[in-house]
């Protein structure tokens, strides 16, 4: 996950926002991977995505 986030940044996709998810994802993992946000579940993920649009 950390590698993927870094690869997206390295590819110059700086205007793309990255959200991660899964049962064990929390703020610790979000910071570790460098993602912009995590969704606690699918509904939370939809709410975050809407707030980005």
């Amino acid at each position: 996950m950390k590698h993927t986030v870094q690869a997206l940044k390295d590819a110059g996709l700086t205007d793309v926002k990255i959200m991660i998810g899964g049962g064990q994802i929390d703020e610790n993992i979000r910071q570790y991977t460098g993602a912009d946000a995590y969704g606690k579940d699918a509904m939370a993920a939809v709410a975050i995505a809407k707030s980005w649009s």
Partner: protein
Amino acid sequence: MFIRPDNWDQMSPLERRKARLDAWQNAPVPFVSPEAEANYKVRIERLRKIYDMEPHDRPIADPFMGANEYVVRRKGLNGKDMVYNHEKLRDPLLEFHNEFQPDTSVMPLPYPGKVMDMLDYKSYIWGGQKLPDNLTIQAVEGEHMLGDEYKDFAADPTNFWLKKYLPRVMPALAPLAMLTELPRVSENVDLIDLVVPFGTPPFQAMLKALMEAGDELMKMLGIVGQTGGMIAASGFPGMGLNIVKTPFDYLGDTLRGTKGILMDMYRRPNDLLAACEAYVPVLINAIVSASDRNSAPAALYVLHKGADAFMSQEQFEKFYWPTWKQVMLALYEEGITSYLFIEGSYNNRLENLAEMPEKSLVCHFDKTDMRRVKEVLSDKFIIAGNVPASLMSAGTTDEVRAYCADLVELYADAPAYIMAHGCYFENTTDEKLRAFMDSVKK
């Protein structure tokens, strides 16, 4: 093998529980030294007091449900090694136990890689096969029972498993579908139907493949058994668990898949309920038989689709809880403790668990609020959990230490608490694992 005492029929559930725990605790171990024997006895006595919810010197820290792969990964071994190279695990495991002196033994699960290859097993992919070597194992869901087959399953779960499910997930076992219906074999001429598949080339090829897989399995079990035996002989007892699931999870994880079972709650509710109910006696018999065979005093449920995020409380109480509770109550009557590994969160389900009799459960939590757990369940049941995998992977040692210290303080006056992880992780550091294990020793 657990031998029931002669007065089993007159014994109460808790007396039966005591008999099973006695058999587990007193199983003979050929210790490597008097020191190892003394250490083993202190450790298993402490664990026994926890199972009995009686006063003891300190909680234990059980790294199994978190660090069971890290204990060999720390020496450079990978997922493929855990699936295929069981002899390579022995030295790192013995070294880990010697160095860390854990309260209980800890090993990776014994994945039989060569056997899975030989039978072309479809329910998983694994390191060295379709996964990269660094990964161990990944479940692959499939619809191994169609929606309109619920009635076939409910009519005879064992027959469905034997003749439909096994051929679908292991094509090498497809000829099992040729077997006759066993309950009608009663008269001499019925032997024709019983034996005729065994005379056909496809069935004989299957038997040959199974015998070859059996030879491989015996080699692997010999190695794994020897390693486990050496760990016990060095002074480290195991928890004594058989892995099982709830009726709903066998149907959801294994037969219908997540999408299928969640839609079935709306589209086929009566079929789903009938299948869960048909499962109850089959599952009770299967778990009691396994507990008698290997003397494990507890059944370890890996719990999946009843978590807060997968279904509403109303759905849980309609589809998930009633048949699971029936199984656990039957096990309680047989003296078998249900060890619940509660993946995800169960914040809405704690009052349901509280319906179970005292000492019938070990409740091991992942994302559940441990303060509410303390209030609702800790007087009746053994509680374990819930150091996050994210902390073990990405947190600092100080953060791990603080999280564990908070749990120790919270459960200081609870009758029985086990420091444990909420989920397994691949990577951490020795320092963080030590902080976890030392947290109960202060």
